[in-house]
């Protein structure tokens, strides 16, 4: 599903956001990316949905070489994945239903297909009851669920979430994590970056830790314990 080989991302000033990252993720895996602020988590995820391209190295996602991709092919590439952010990225003028439908409408889906698919996605995140509410009327956790539902709309093979629980309290975070696990169990590959150790600890999931742009540990499912180093 994901194949990063010796990937570096460099800025003009010679500043490197990622240095020599090699990472392989199988279809259907669930991976946490952790690391301190500025470690390069967001950068790593941006490579996956081709917001950024590597300065050197190879990034292959869903069988597509990200660096070699023509700009015209990016939309089709992104339709096969879902992206979720810390700040939700919902459109405040649209209802919950419309926000999820939005992802389908912009890809030219037909009305009938939209009416069938949106409730499925909202059902998955447990928010069908609030489908006529506006984002402003929802709690942070609920808004994040809507964002996840929207990311699911196009049946993605890969779900990428950048600190989906960064703004949420621990209980709510756990709820979001549950939703992500459920999505993963249905077969979708999930990559989640987080600061939130509570979310990672004792979850028996694969954890990849970044520091200063490099992978400093990559522990297989079940073996991760909280890093002893002090974090923010």
């Amino acid at each position, binding site marked *: 599903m994901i194949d990063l080989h010796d990937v570096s991302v460099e800025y003009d000033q010679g500043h490197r956001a990622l240095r020599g990252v090699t990472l392989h993720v199988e279809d259907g895996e669930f991976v946490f990316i952790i690391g301190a602020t500025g470690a390069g988590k967001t950068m790593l995820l941006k490579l996956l949905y081709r917001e950024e391209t590597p300065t050197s190295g190879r990034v292959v996602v869903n069988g597509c070489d990200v660096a070699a991709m023509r700009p015209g092919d*990016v*939309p089709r590439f*992104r339709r096969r994945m879902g992206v979720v952010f810390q700040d939700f990225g919902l459109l405040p003028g649209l209802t919950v239903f419309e926000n999820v439908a939005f992802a389908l409408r912009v890809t030219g889906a037909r009305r009938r297909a939209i009416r069938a698919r949106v409730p499925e996605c909202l059902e998955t995140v447990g928010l069908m009851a609030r489908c006529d509410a506006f984002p402003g009327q929802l709690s942070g956790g609920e808004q994040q669920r809507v964002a996840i539902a929207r990311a699911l709309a196009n049946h993605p093979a890969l779900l990428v979430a950048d600190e989906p629980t960064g703004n949420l309290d621990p209980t709510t975070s756990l709820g979001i994590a549950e939703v992500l696990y459920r999505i993963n169990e249905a077969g979708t590959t999930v990559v989640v970056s987080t600061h939130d150790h509570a979310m990672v600890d004792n979850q028996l999931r694969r954890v990849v830790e970044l520091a200063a742009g490099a992978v400093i540990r990559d522990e297989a499912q079940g073996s991760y314990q909280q890093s002893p180093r002090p974090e923010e």
Partner: protein
Amino acid sequence: MSFSAFAFLVDDAAKSIRRNGLMSIAALTTVTVAMAVLGGSLFTIYRLKQFADSQPRRFEILAFVDPKADAASVESVRDRAAHIPGVASAVVYTKDQALRDLQAEDRRQHTEIVASLEGINPLPDRIDVRVSDPAVTVRVANELRSPRFPEIEQVRDENDALSKLIALSNVIRNVGGAVALLLFIATAFVIQNTIRLTIYARRREIRVMQLVGATSAFIRLPFLLEGTFYGAAGATAAACLVLFVVAQVSSYAGQFQTPLTQGVPPAVSSAVIVVMMVATGSAVGVGTSVISLRRFLRRV
């Protein structure tokens, strides 16, 4: 693209036009004014040109040779006339030719002018001089009247009303063109600014669209529609304005047979003017939106 997707785009464009409020009005107004100036100038030039074209023997000087002159001296007059600077061509129109044409005219009109002449041809030989530039008409005509052409009895040249008309038309073309150009630049700026505001107002939406895999055409289309709307709607308003003014002027001046109001049926020229203006306006709208999208919308 499915119908519902297209309806979605149109809906988007309409929403943003409403949301832009004052900017939309500013965009529409500048387009309207620019198009009205352009359309008004074009219409006036068009009418003046039609009027000028409807005048017979444009830019031509007719030199009537003394009937007593023989064929050789007619030919020599023609030669010398052809060598006057500014003359494009000088052609002899013989009295025989003139008589034949008159006969033909008799047959068409069922008159008997030639027959009544009883074999005498009173017509003079004539030399038709065409000048290369209407501005030299008077000078060439005066040259032909001068003693250097003793064989020429009479010279008839274009009246200078026509050259005044041409000068006027040129002034309208230049001034109208310059003003319209300036206004178009202003229009381009205003439309561009409006599109930029729209992009800014919708940056979240655009971002989400990009992330869920909307094609860049799909993202751009509402902006193109918006720009086209400003161009086309402004131009339509301007066309209505121009046609209204023309109708008013015509109804007052119709009886005086002015160059602007006489001749061609108005419906023909009106349709042409409207189509031209709306096409130009839409083109300006599309062009500016394309430029603004290039400038302000981050690719993918």
